[in-house]
């Protein structure tokens, strides 16, 4: 019996042992991860000889489980920035080796000791032109069921975005959003609760809008960009667009840490960022990337819409993540 167990264990260890020429990249699937594979992973494999295995979708519970169990199979993970700040505090992340990853040209808003920017994006108001008459022009319109009847779709999980949208729609000035008045936000959300359809992932948000199942909603700008590219009849308003960022992190105890750092250097390089931005419609976090991009693509990026743009406060969210989440899910379940 013992022999059998020893054999099984040895077999398991052999298959999971780290290989220096292989690493695992985890992201959110769909059009975003496809763009990351093409813009970062494939050229990186060609230049470094390190094979990049794709996994996903990102799951914070899994990441924590891997680190806790000291059995980390992900080397680089694309996460939301507020999670990265919190995870770094909880000791779940490796520090970034800035001797390998050049820091000089990285937008300092989206990088810190344990994370480098992946891309940054805006939540925008998108609608199905066939299902909406007129043009919704502000978040307040999403709360006006008389002027704009129909289902509206919002991001399901507790994350920066919807609370801010409710407060803006209720008349809170952009510079007075933080600290978030949760009572006021939930009261505002209550007024349209029965008209909300939640989307849990990017592909779902695209499906809801494209089919007209939801007439309009709060979407990631890259997902709207992909819909437009596919020829879907969608409208988009950048008024009060809300920026947030995804960052790349290395979980503590990652098997191929060296490979991971090299991958980060390639992914955040001007070329890697320019290619990804072109493929996804998300904005680059390397300040030199735009010089390598076609002018018409630059025009469609979130940073071409800085007028009325609002930066979601990642540090505030990292600080109050649990408290807001508890109330968020309690409100949803009501």
């Amino acid at each position, binding site marked *: 019996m013992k022999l059998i167990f020893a054999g099984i264990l040895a077999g398991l260890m052999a298959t999971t042992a780290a290989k220096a020429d292989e690493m695992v990249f985890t992201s959110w699937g769909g059009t975003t991860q496809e763009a990351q594979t093409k813009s970062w992973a494939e050229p990186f494999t060609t230049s470094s000889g390190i094979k990049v295995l794709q996994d996903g979708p990102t*799951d*914070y*519970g*899994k990441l*924590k489980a891997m680190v806790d169990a000291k059995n980390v199979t992900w080397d680089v993970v694309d996460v939301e920035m507020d999670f990265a700040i919190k995870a770094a505090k*909880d000791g779940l992340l490796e520090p970034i080796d800035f001797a390998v990853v050049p820091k000089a040209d990285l937008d300092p808003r989206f990088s810190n000791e344990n994370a480098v920017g992946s891309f940054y994006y805006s939540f925008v108001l998108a609608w199905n032109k066939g299902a909406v008459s007129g043009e919704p022009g502000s978040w307040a319109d999403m709360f006006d069921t008389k002027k704009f009847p129909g*289902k509206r779709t919002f991001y*399901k*999980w*507790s994350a920066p975005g919807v609370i801010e949208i409710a407060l803006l729609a209720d008349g809170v000035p952009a510079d007075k959003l933080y600290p978030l008045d949760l009572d006021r936000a939930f009261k505002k959300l209550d007024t349209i609760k029965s008209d909300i*359809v*939640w989307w849990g992932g990017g592909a779902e948000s695209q499906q809801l809008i494209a*089919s*007209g*199942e939801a007439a309009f909603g709060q979407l990631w700008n890259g997902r709207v960009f992909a819909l437009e590219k596919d020829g879907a009849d969608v409208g988009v308003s950048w008024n009060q667009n809300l920026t947030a960022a995804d960052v790349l992190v290395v979980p503590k105890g990652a098997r191929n840490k060296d490979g991971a750092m090299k991958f980060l250097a390639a992914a955040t390089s001007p070329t890697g960022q320019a290619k990804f931005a072109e493929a996804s419609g998300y904005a680059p976090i390397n300040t030199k990337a735009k010089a390598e991009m076609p002018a018409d693509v630059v025009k469609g990026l979130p940073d071409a819409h800085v007028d009325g743009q609002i930066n979601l406060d990642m540090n505030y969210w990292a600080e109050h993540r*649990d408290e807001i*989440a*508890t109330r968020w*899910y*309690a409100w*949803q*379940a*009501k």
Partner: protein
Amino acid sequence: MSVEAQQGITTSRIPAGLGGLFPALILIGLFFVVPVLALLLRSVTDPAPGLQNYAALLGDGTYVRVFFNTFVVAFVVTIVTVVVAFPVAWMLAIMPPALASILFGIIILSMWTNLLTRTYAWMVLLQRTGVINRALMGAGIIDQPLPLINNLTGVTIGMVYIMLPFMILPLVGTLRAIDPMTLRAAALCGASPFAAFRRILLPLSLPGIAAGGLMVFVMSLGYFVTPALLGGTSNMMLAEMIAQMIQSLLNWGLGSAAAFILLVVTMALYALQLRLVGSKRAAGGA
């Protein structure tokens, strides 16, 4: 041969083959009992030793409501499944065997199809712009789409569909064991078809209904995919809440406590059913 008699024979044979149980016991011990104990341990130690996770769950209106929702959904699904499954099971029981085996094949085949695929298929059918609503609106029967998804209706339809085989199979076993002559005798004595059903068929098939019903109810309690896709946030079920606690809040102590409560309640229900129906009859026909 009655169900009791069959059970009697098997029971008497068990001691001789006890050794054969060991592989299964080791498997269950290693991959069920040990993790459950770890879960229990985490629920009283994470983030700090004590019962605060349980206090938080039982003291908070939201969590209690989710528990309540879970039981309501499981109960509704079980009732509807029984009502839909009974006629099918009766047909299968009295049908010529060749035809019945074809129908069985169809029922089993549906179980082999991927759960996610089947649930997505229901989404396509039920949504506001889905096949059913479009057809009804096209035919002029309704002007506004019916709310068939993201609510209790959607969850019930999707889950009953998935649970049906688990109800039909034990029920057919029980119904086949009923002597059709009893129904003929009832008719001869002047009972109406409904009276025969209510006073003969229904009582005799209770063990099958109880066995299938318990299985459906217990499976429904822990269901995740179908409620998550076809339900709304306001009738969230426990499994989805646990997933949120684990994945999004990273509050594993709370998630473990919720999972443990679900396990205890499920086992208590099983014990209750054994007492009410009797252990032999509960297992009968399955």
